[in-house]
């Protein structure tokens, strides 16, 4: 029997090519999109959930109310003694890990090969127990018990030493530390926070490199990531309520600070997607992106399934007779439903095959879109294939259920005589088409709004110049020591206009402290961003001075106690005439020598906040070089030659400030790309459906068209009459789409401190666009019908 069903499906597929093509391409795109998104969602969802202890691990984060940095006053870093103390004080704390990392450290192997790697240092056996590291060589209990020992991931061991046994070999860190390899662990999966760390060393080894060990490990230093593992069955709320006691007993008494702070336990399961704290070990995911992608998958799959439902029920009248015959011969309803559902499942399976090909073709673009490197082998892993099959079958089932219900309900006595159930179900069909277009139009409108906000961001005057500026990260102190020589050499080149060294760039100022001034009404204390720069900082970035002067080489004291403040800080301190005033910054006195014009130092999500700039060489991290726009490659070559002269051991890395600036909006760019691709696909699939429906209706109305023409209708009359009913649907869709898009986009824009107003023309444009696309689609069919010879179509029946 099943064989019989399949024969019919296959013959239908090959016989009705247009119908088949429209259905299968729509379903294939839908399944392809949904399955890629599934790949991504699975990756993000399972992030850091693969450890056996995941459920009982918590990260300690702290909140300093009001100390808002990058949009939040939560911080992922705590004090080094915290973890140990928690285990000591609270019996329900089973285990703790304190860790931190160095990024881009130069590693030498055999004094020959150079690598730049990230190094993790942590309380050693605890880390391995809590996160269940699998040791291939060495053992977790004592691998790092000696100082200057290190363990490598399987991948890094292979990278450094090839097939040789790495245990007992040494690696040289930052040119002067030699560490012995004592173990190799199985590389963590890509969706683990440890995936990037192929080199792990102990706290003791790290500490031995420090000059100010006491200070680093004190309660006053917040630079450590702390994890605790609670005993089974312990409610984290219970432990959390006791955390203020720790602050009171240890933090406040040790530091004498009265700063208000709160500790929270954040479940490991939430740290990746729901992270709200600054300073995480790794770049975090974003639940919003995950949800938006799921929504897009759902919308696209729905639109594609609606196509199938519409085209199938429209064509149902053609199959009515088959249903009648089958019923007469003895088929019952269940058998017919089975038949038509298996029909749609065959369609979805064929579509699935094409979808898999689409997945393979578009995986690289998708990787770029979501920022994860999935290899094509990921598409052939059982977990993916099972999910893929489930999506495919579900799509088949959902799109087939309604047509099957309609078809199996035909009464044989009626349909057998050729009394086709014409016109029925067309109301539902219209509703479905309106749904499709409403979703597409809303997406188009969202795309326009997002793109115009992005455009606004790119073109808004941020208050500093970012064109033709090349940025070199200074990497470490040895390079900073050579700074003056480098600057001199660079300034010699005719294409180089300005060179400046600074602790931050105007786009990433992320350090803040307290500024105090004694006023008439007592002391004013303002939380302010801070950075360090040199004499050329302001001219390089074209930041203007509204009062006073820039740092000057001719004033010897500038490098020690001069400070530039921005307008916001002057305002916050309540100063009308700030130049010449003395500020107290962390106990030291500074003279305000100039007021600089406010500039946006963060993304436009945030308002401009107070900032001051001081001079202090050891803190400098970036060299920014303003160049003339012509002959850039030669200029870069020159810069590279200078770099190699003074910092040969460090790789030459450079970037352009304007592209760094754009990366501030990476999340928004990603969001914009996702929505615009989705809206493109949505409208495309919806049009496939419209095309099919139009061609079918035109086919059915061939006779009516013939009669109309015989009675004197012109081609444009006929096209008008036929197209009108479709365009009406798109018009209704607009009415639903506009408020929906307006609602979502107003919400989205709330996240920006500086934003566009949503203007009415965006909706006119997107609605008009959808209408135009629909008109073109439908016209291709209606014009063909209107031009045909009426004699043929009248004789047709």
């Amino acid at each position, binding site marked *: *029997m099943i064989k*019989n069903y399949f*024969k*019919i499906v296959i*013959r*239908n597929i090959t*016989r009705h090519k247009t119908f088949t093509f429209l259905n299968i391409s729509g379903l294939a795109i839908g399944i392809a999109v949904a399955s890629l998104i599934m790949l991504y969602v699975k990756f993000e969802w399972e992030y850091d959930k693969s450890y056996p202890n995941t459920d009982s691990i918590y990260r300690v984060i702290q909140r300093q109310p009001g100390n808002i940095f990058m949009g939040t006053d939560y911080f992922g870093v705590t004090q080094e003694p915290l973890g140990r103390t928690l285990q000591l004080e609270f019996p329900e704390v089973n285990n703790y890990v304190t860790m931190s990392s160095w990024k881009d450290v130069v590693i030498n192997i055999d004094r020959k090969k150079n690598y730049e790697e990230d190094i993790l240092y942590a309380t050693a056996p605890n880390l391995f127990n809590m996160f269940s590291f699998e040791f291939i060589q060495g053992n977790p209990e004592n691998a790092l018990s000696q100082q200057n020992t290190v363990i490598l991931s399987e991948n890094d061991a292979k990278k450094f030493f090839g097939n040789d046994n790495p245990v007992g070999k040494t690696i040289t860190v930052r040119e002067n530390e030699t560490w012995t390899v004592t173990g190799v662990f199985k590389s963590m999966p890509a969706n683990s926070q440890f995936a990037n760390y192929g080199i792990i060393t102990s706290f003791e080894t790290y500490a031995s490199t420090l000059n100010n060990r006491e200070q680093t490990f004190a309660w006053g230093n917040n630079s450590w990531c702390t994890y605790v593992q609670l005993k089974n069955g312990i409610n984290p709320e219970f432990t959390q309520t006791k955390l203020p006691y720790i602050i009171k007993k240890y933090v406040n008494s040790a530091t004498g600070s009265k700063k208000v702070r709160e500790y929270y336990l954040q479940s490991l399961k939430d740290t990746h997607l729901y992270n709200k704290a600054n300073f995480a070990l790794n770049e975090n995911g974003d639940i919003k992106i995950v949800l938006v992608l799921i929504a897009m998958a759902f919308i696209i799959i729905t639109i594609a399934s609606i196509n199938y439902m519409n085209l199938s029920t429209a064509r149902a009248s053609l199959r009515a*007779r*088959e249903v*009648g*015959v*089958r*019923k*007469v*011969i*003895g*088929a*019952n*309803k269940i*058998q017919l439903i089975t038949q038509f559902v298996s029909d749609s499942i065959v369609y979805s399976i064929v579509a699935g095959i094409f979808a898999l090909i689409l997945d393979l073709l578009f995986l690289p673009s998708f990787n770029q879109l979501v920022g994860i490197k999935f290899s094509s082998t990921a598409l052939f892993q059982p977990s993916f294939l099972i999910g893929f099959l489930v999506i495919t079958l579900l799509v088949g089932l959902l799109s087939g259920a309604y047509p099957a219900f309609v078809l199996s309900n035909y*009464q*044989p*006595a009626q349909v*057998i*005589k*050729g009394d086709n159930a014409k016109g029925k179900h067309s109301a539902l069909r219209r509703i479905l088409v309106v749904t499709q277009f409403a979703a597409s139009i809303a997406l188009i409108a969202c795309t326009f709004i997002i793109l115009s906000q992005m455009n606004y961001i790119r073109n808004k005057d941020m208050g500093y110049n970012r064109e033709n500026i090349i940025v070199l990260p200074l990497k470490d102190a040895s390079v900073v020591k050579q700074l003056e020589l480098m600057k001199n050499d660079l300034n010699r080149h005719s294409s180089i206009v300005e060179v400046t060294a600074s602790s931050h760039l105007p786009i990433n100022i992320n350090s803040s402290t307290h500024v105090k001034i004694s006023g008439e009404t007592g002391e004013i204390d303002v939380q302010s961003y801070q950075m360090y720069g040199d004499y050329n900082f302001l001219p390089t970035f074209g930041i203007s001075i509204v009062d006073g002067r820039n740092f000057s080489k001719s004033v010897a004291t500038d490098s020690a106690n001069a400070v530039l403040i921005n307008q916001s800080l002057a305002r916050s301190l309540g100063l009308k005439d700030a130049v010449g005033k003395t500020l107290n910054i962390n106990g030291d006195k500074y003279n305000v020598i100039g007021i600089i014009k406010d500039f946006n130092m963060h993304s436009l999500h945030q308002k401009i906040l107070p900032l001051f700039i001081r001079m202090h060489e050891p803190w400098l991290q970036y060299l920014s070089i303003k160049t003339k726009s012509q002959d850039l490659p030669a200029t870069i070559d020159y810069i590279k030659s200078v770099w190699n002269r003074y910092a040969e051991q460090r790789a030459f890395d450079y970037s352009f400030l304007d592209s760094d600036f754009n990366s501030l909006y990476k999340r928004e760019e990603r969001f914009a790309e996702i929505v615009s691709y989705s809206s493109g696909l949505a409208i495309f699939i919806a049009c496939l459906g419209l095309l099919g429906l139009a061609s079918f209706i035109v086919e059915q109305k061939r006779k009516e068209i013939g009669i109309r023409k015989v009675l004197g209708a012109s081609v444009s009359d006929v096209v008008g009459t036929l197209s009108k009913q479709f365009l009406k649907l798109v018009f209704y869709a607009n009415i639903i789409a506009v408020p929906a898009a307006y609602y979502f986009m107003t919400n989205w824009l709330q996240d920006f401190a500086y934003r566009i107003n949503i203007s009415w023309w965006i909706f006119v444009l997107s609605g008009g666009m959808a209408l135009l696309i629909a008109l073109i689609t439908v016209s291709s069919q209606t014009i063909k019908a209107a031009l045909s010879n009426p004699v043929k179509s009248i004789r047709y029946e």
Partner: protein
Amino acid sequence: MLRTNNLVKIYRTEEVETTALDNVSIEINEGEFVSIMGPSGCGKSTLMNILGMLDNPSGGEYHFLGKEVSKFNERQRAQIRKENIGFVFQSFNLIDELTIYENVELPLLYLKVSPSERKRKVQTVLEIMEIMHRRNHFPQQLSGGQQQRVAVARALVANPKLILADEPTGNLDSSHGDEVMKMLTFLNEGGTTVIMVTHSPTYAEYGNRVIHLFDGKVVTENFQESFRV
């Protein structure tokens, strides 16, 4: 074989109520060949639909093989139908996507007959109907007469006790019509009961009895000496 008692069928639309069958009481015995005649709209097809259990009557009784079936639900009717009744229609009603062989095989599939048995049965009827050579063609590739022979083959492949033929010759020219009538007679001689609706008095006379319907009522029942051409 079957007996109706005051069968009534009323069609309702929003404004009109039409009585298609008005107290029809007939009895048809096993082995009979009954022709039903009457003008358009007299209720012939309605009667056939009810006799074939494609439709339920609005009132009255219908006994089929000793069972009162007028109140049966669709599933029960489908069960009796597929085991006992074969249909032949004016418009053939073959499934375009299936070959001749597959069309004829279809009733056996719904009866869950084993593959080897199916093959044997289908081949036998195709040979009887003399269309074995076209078994792999699709319906549109055949002439009207050939298509109707396929339809007859399909009707009798499951070896039904009753064949209902609704104007089987209506879409055929006279030579093809004759052919189909010969087939039906042949089946009847083999013991199958045949009920046939027709407009043609000539073809009506193939039956051993003619029932005339007018305005939903039985007007006459003529028994006649069956004669064979």
